[in-house]
């Protein structure tokens, strides 16, 4: 069998034709790989969010409603400066059906000399927290000590480094795994450290005082409802018991995100399908035209003793090589685009966005390349099969 060298010569000595086929396949691969990565990233972001947001209800001061969007606050991790009495957590536990109540305190650093970076600081109580702590525990074996912080993956500080917040030096003891949300830009500390930071902020004129004058404050309390209790009923009970506190059900927010995600996912999938159907037709037409243009060449080869099978293999080799090169190029370009502009994509979608792991990306890339090769081979094989049925004498005479 010596058809392969002939295929290689055909590809190399018809650079215009080869480039056109490679570009067409590259465009397809780009659409599939890019679209798939975006869809998977959105799904991974939602899963990460669901895992992190284990709370059924979140309590915030009533004034928070006018200061911050709850959706952004809980889904993107954008915190605000609002406070309520720390005793809200204990009081919430007295409500029937409340299994856990985990307080968190928020503080924003300043873009000023007193702070090395402008970040959100979130104080948690490791003994009670069930939302952020499991995520922190994956990167930090011990509990957060005093004046120690765990930083989100986008904060830009390494383990062992020190960051300055309101003139207080905090040591970075852990870098957290990405979540695909705004929490990746926050730092986490225990409540004692937070009290120190709040006092330091007070000294710089950033007040966290509440009307009762109590020093012990929290920004939000995350509630886990006991099995067998209706979340709506517990929500109503909490609203009734706690004054100047708003209870927000997380399910409604997650459902909203999930709906948005499903919509985007459907759109991206539909686009991929449309592109592939169009591309399949275009490739089929392209190969039909090319094979027809090469009818004389095929006829000569038949005349010289090439079998139909050999001609089919030749067409298959050539299209598979174009598919392979196009698939690799398209996937590569899409990878560069999607990964380089992930922050921009994340920002413009406004949804949790978490790029899948390396092995998933590798499988996706391999699948895309395989698909490119398969579609190229399939479309050319059909055209070549039809032509191989034509009588060489007729093809030579008609093509004369």
């Amino acid at each position, binding site marked *: *069998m*010596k*058809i392969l*060298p*002939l295929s290689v*010569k*055909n590809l190399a*000595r*018809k650079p215009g034709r080869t480039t056109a086929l490679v570009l067409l396949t590259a465009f397809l691969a780009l659409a599939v790989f890019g679209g798939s990565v975006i869809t998977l990233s959105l799904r991974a972001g939602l899963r990460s969010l669901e895992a992190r947001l284990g709370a059924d209800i979140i309590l915030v001061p009533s004034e928070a409603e006018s200061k911050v969007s709850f959706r952004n606050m809980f889904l993107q991790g954008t915190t605000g400066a609002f406070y309520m009495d720390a005793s809200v957590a204990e009081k919430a536990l007295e409500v029937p059906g409340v299994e856990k109540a985990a307080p968190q305190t928020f503080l924003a650093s300043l873009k000023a000399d007193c702070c090395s970076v402008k970040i959100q600081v979130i104080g948690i109580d490791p003994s009670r927290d069930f939302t952020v702590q499991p995520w922190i525990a994956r990167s930090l074996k011990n509990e957060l000590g005093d004046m120690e912080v765990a930083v989100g993956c986008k904060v830009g500080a390494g383990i062992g480094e020190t960051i300055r917040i309101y003139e207080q030096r905090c040591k970075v003891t852990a870098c957290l795994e990405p979540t695909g949300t705004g929490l990746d830009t926050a730092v986490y500390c225990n409540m004692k450290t937070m009290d120190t930071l709040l006092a330091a902020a007070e000294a710089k004129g950033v007040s966290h005082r509440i009307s009762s004058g109590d020093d012990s404050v929290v920004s939000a309390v995350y509630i886990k409802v006991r099995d067998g209790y209706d979340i709506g009923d517990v929500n109503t009970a909490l609203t009734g018991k706690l004054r100047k506190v708003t209870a927000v059900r997380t399910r409604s927010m997650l459902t909203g995100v999930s709906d948005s995600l499903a919509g985007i996912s459907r759109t991206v999938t539909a686009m991929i399908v449309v592109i592939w159907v169009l591309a399949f037709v275009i490739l089929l037409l392209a190969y039909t035209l090319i094979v027809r243009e090469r009818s*004389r*060449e095929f*006829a*000569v*080869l*038949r*005349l*010289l*003793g*090439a*079998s*139909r*099978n*050999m001609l089919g293999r030749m067409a298959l080799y050539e299209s598979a090589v174009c598919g392979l090169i196009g698939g690799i190029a398209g996937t590569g370009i899409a990878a560069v685009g999607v990964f380089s502009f992930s922050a921009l994509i994340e920002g413009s979608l406004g949804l949790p966005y978490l790029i899948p792991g390396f092995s998933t990306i590798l499988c996706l890339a391999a699948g895309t390349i395989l698909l490119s090769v398969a579609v190229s081979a399939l479309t050319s094989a059909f055209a070549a099969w039809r032509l191989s049925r034509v*009588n*060489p*004498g007729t093809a*030579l*005479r008609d*093509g*004369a």
Partner: protein
Amino acid sequence: MLLQADNISKTFFRNTGSANYFYAVSPLSMEIRPGTVTVLTGRSGSGKTTLLNMLCGILQPTEGRVLMDRTDLYSLDDAALSRFRNEHIGVIPQARSAVDTLTAEENILLPARLYGKDPPAEKARRWMENFEIAHLAGVFPRELSGGELRRMAIIRAVIRDPDLLFADEPTGDLDDENTHRVLSALHDLAHGENKAVFIVTHENDAEKYADRVFRMDRGEVFPLA
């Protein structure tokens, strides 16, 4: 090798309103013997090329058999028939028949390379020198004239040393000198190397080189000499 056409015919569909099928080649039997040059003449559209295509194994007759020694060509499957053509039959087609992505020399050596045989480069060079196209070995077909392409096709047809050689208007693009050179070469192949040569031509001079001459008219074949 002796080639026998046993009562072969070819009909084609043509929507004429009255009779939809017509005979391009009416039933005929003939032999093409080793060591002879057989020439077939006739007007355009008389069925000469159709007959040649059936004899050389690329167009299945509607009826009848084509036998090479004892092998019925059209009883072979495509792979076997293709290989048989490659090894035993050389064809010089009427039309331009070069593979555009290969040089003249690569085109000539293509029949050998199709099945992984050692390309007879020395033999190719001798033939190219003889036909005065040795200097065009590395040139692509688009840069060759009609006559040069025709000479290239002739060398390609003989390069595998076939038992039967079919030539469809082999001198169509050639001047008198090259016409004489090609016809002499085909005659020498028949008489010197015991090949069976079958030539379809309008060239009157071809009859001088023939052992047998047939004329074809409206699908029917008549012996002339």
